């Protein structure tokens, strides 16, 4: 039986075009009506260290990553070594023929601690020292090995193009691997060619060169590999319009929709892509026929980024800044100022492996408590956590409504996995998205009246004006202040101001719609419930399906509004459950702790991961099953992925 859902992986040294290969591959699959989920892993390095891209492709929606690889396109020996054991029986490995004799322990980019691991594997599996030995061992597991003489193919291509120096076209190895992959998968080569051309559309001759490389490799593989490779990709006819986008892009588009018109940033992984995308798409069309534009400012540091965003917000622009852990650390004082001055500030916070510089290009969810408590003193804030790309889009837009309505900083808490994954979706229909600027007074409203920026009100929300409004000269200060915004150290005024600010959180609790606070999936009447937040969602949802088919009953509560935590609703959902399983990408189970603090109910099982790699469906499912069958420790720590 042919296998129609596959997990394709491309890997090679950074700078060798792994991302481009994945992009072309994903596009080609998209053209054929297939769903794609992609995940990108890379070192904090520009050239030479290992990077790889997973693409899961299926006729049905795919939303997470799995362990098993069906076809591995290795640009170099390192990729083959690192991922060989992920390739399933009946799967295939495409390698460079010239790498076969490479001694695996001599790959120069392997660090000593990894070499130890290799030695251990060699001993355990009784493996020889060359890549060929490793591949032969894989063949015993029924893995197909497809050695491709990349250099010969490049020579042929070079001749045709009249380019004698092969070094000028070695970059095209990535496209060669795509040609070979699609030939093996018997996929429509026209779609592959279309994807190549679209990818290099703006590069003139390069597009043609790459198309030639693709076809040369496709022909070579078709003629050479007559093996019975069971995996197939078959195009489907679909009428629906779809998008293939990354988390970064979804957030950027969401911001545009939500009216963000000033974005500040200081370059940092994995946040900077979002700002660069925004700058590239600075001018936008509107239904009024009048274009609008977002100003993107690269500031001198994150301190300037957060504070200039606050300044822009006070002047009436919807404003945001985007960063990850190290940058947010620098923003903390500014956050406190914004909380005190009731600034509608939006901070997009992509967590990555931490502490310190940590794993700068890797994933983690270790900053929840930091986002929640950052800043000296007590002030209200909102923390939204999106669990998939579509939520990223709408939450990014909604963040501005919340920020302006409740006049407080909103932290949109994401992570590296979310930022760098890509997924196919039906085109987003955002026609119902409304802009709510909260209580915003104009010059007219204030004619003949005295304006007090921080007027005490029932809800704690004081009607706002933007700087520059006539009849409304007003003041802000980071000091405690009176209603006018002047410094005040009077104890009773202080008490009222603290209460006024904090009270706004009650309003948030009351007004945010239920499904935007918590989302429930699976069998919520079950005695077992998963709690989680952010990017593990995909792996959890796929696991729920798999476990259901195996007869397990399990529910899932995704927390979307993490702060203020919808305490009562969470309590209701967790009360009386036998197993509460907390799934998070951190060591200290931060959400679990927060839930316990707020509700008195603690999870009794934990599935945690802190290797810097996101969870896969395979490992989540396995851990959950172990828990449900009483075979698990209270704490399951996941480690899959290189």
């Amino acid at each position, binding site marked *: 039986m042919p296998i129609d859902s596959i997990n394709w992986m491309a890997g090679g040294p950074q700078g060798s075009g792994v991302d481009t290969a994945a992009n072309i591959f994903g596009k080609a699959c998209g053209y054929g009506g297939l769903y794609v989920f992609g995940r990108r892993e890379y070192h904090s390095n520009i050239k030479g260290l290992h990077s790889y891209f997973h693409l899961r492709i299926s006729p049905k929606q795919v939303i997470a990553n799995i362990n098993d690889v069906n076809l591995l396109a290795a640009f170099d020996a390192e990729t083959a070594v690192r991922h060989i054991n992920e390739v399933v029986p009946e799967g295939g490995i495409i390698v460079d023929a010239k790498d076969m004799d490479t001694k695996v322990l001599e790959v120069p980019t392997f660090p000593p601690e990894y070499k130890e691991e290799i030695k251990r594997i060699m001993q355990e599996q009784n493996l020889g020292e060359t890549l060929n030995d490793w591949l032969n061992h894989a063949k015993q597991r029924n893995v197909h090995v497809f050695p491709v003489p990349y250099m010969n193919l490049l020579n042929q291509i070079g001749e045709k193009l009249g380019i004698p120096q092969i070094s000028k076209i070695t970059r095209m190895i990535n496209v060669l691997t795509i040609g070979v992959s699609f030939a093996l998968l018997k996929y429509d080569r026209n779609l592959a060619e279309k994807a190549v051309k679209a990818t290099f559309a703006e590069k003139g001759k390069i597009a043609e060169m790459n198309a030639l490389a693709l076809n040369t490799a496709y022909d070579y593989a078709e003629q050479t590999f007559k093996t019975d490779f069971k995996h197939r990709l078959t195009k489907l006819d679909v009428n629906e319009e779809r998008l293939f986008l990354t988390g970064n892009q979804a957030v950027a588009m969401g911001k545009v929709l939500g009216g963000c018109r000033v974005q500040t940033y200081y370059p940092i992984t994995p946040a900077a892509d979002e700002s660069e995308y925004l700058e590239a798409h600075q001018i936008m069309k509107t239904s009024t026929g009048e274009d609008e534009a977002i100003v993107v400012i690269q500031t001198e540091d994150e301190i300037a980024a957060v*504070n200039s965003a606050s300044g822009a917000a006070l002047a009436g622009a919807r*404003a945001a800044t985007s960063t990850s852990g190290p940058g947010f650390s620098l923003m903390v004082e500014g956050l406190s100022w914004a909380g005190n001055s009731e600034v509608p500030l939006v901070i997009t916070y992509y967590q990555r492996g931490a502490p310190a510089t940590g794993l700068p290009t890797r994933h983690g969810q270790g900053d929840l408590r930091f986002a929640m408590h950052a800043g000296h003193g007590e002030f209200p804030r909102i923390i939204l956590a999106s669990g998939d790309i579509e939520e990223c889009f709408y939450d990014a837009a909604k963040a501005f409504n919340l920020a302006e309505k409740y006049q407080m900083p909103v932290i949109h808490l994401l992570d590296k996995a979310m930022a760098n994954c890509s997924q196919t979706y039906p085109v987003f229909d*955002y026609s119902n998205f409304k802009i709510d600027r909260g209580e915003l007074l104009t010059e007219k409203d204030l004619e003949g009246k005295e304006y007090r920026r921080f007027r005490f009100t029932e809800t704690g929300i004081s009607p706002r004006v933007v700087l520059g409004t006539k009849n409304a000269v007003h003041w802000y200060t980071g000091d405690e202040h009176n209603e006018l915004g002047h410094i005040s150290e009077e104890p009773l005024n202080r008490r009222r101001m603290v209460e006024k600010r904090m009270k706004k959180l009650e309003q948030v609790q009351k007004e945010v719609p239920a499904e935007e606070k918590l989302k429930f999936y699976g069998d919520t009447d079950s005695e077992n419930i998963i709690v989680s937040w952010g990017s593990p969602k995909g792996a959890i949802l796929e696991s729920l399906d798999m476990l259901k088919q195996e007869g397990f009953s399990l529910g899932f509560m995704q927390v979307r509004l993490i702060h203020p935590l919808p305490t009562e609703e969470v309590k209701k959902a967790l009360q009386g459950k036998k197993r509460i399983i907390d799934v998070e990408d951190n060591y200290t189970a931060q959400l679990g702790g927060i839930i316990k603090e707020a509700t008195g109910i603690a999870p009794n099982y934990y599935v945690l991961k802190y290797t810097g790699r996101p969870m896969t469906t395979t490992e989540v499912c396995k851990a959950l099953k172990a828990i449900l069958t009483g075979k698990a420790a209270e704490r399951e720590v996941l480690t899959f992925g290189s």
Partner: protein
Amino acid sequence: MVLKPSDFRVPEVFADWCPGCGDFGIMNGLQMAFAELGLEPHRIVMVSGIGCSGKEPHNVKCNGVHTLHGRTLPFAMGIKVANPELEVIAIGGDGDGLGIGAGHFVNAGRRNLDMTYIIHNNGVYGLTKGQASPTLRLGLQTKALPKPNINEAVNAIGLAVISGYTFAARSYAYDVRHLKDTIKQAIQHKGLAFIDCLQPCPTYNNITTKDWYAGEDRKDASGKPQSRLYKLEETGFDPVVHDWSEDFQKKMAAMDKAREWGDRIPIGVFYKNELEPTFEERLKDRIPFYRERPPAKQKLKDQNGFSTVDLSEFMGELKTS
């Protein structure tokens, strides 16, 4: 609109500087300059950092944003970029702008936003009780210092000029007329204007005092004090870059003047160049309608509240077909 300095008073706020503090003079200078320029209070935004100087906006009737220590420039930038119609005046102490905020000081020069930045240069950290500020010279020991200053001073005017400020001037808190005129020129300047305002702190700085600036310690034969301050404009010094070819030489001349200190201290305009495009002009090159519809003035929604943005171009690029 005819305005008087008194229109810019804030009677409900008690200005809590020490008696004799130079900050009063700066407050008066600001109120007079705003009145003479006929700037309506609601169109002005005074942004300040933290320090005694940071309280300036609470004592002037216009919008005030009293921010964080060292961060006056980033806030000011955000405000100005969002709405370039606003008259933005950034205020700060010497510690604020040249110590903790020095990174912003330099980088603001690279942008050349059309706004004004006034540093209250009193040689000390007033509000934290008199520690050395970045403008205090090596070896001086002001009143509250346990030991003489171990750091050399930064040259504020020089730093402004090489950082790209297109207007650099110095004035004196007790020559309110000169200060008022300098503030007016700074506001009218197209581009980022910096004023190094010498500001006696009678409480902690017992070295560069009002008497010292006035030269009370060096009277001439008739008993008249010989002021240490002299006005550049009275010496025929021409700070203006009329043509790019003059720029280097004008910058060098400004730097040269900025080195003078001690018995002769220049005040007035050191450097002025309106040829350099402002940040707003640079933005307009990218966004043709930036002036008419800056970030703060965009509509965002239609009459029913729906977002007016049309994302089809964005989505077009991401479509799989």
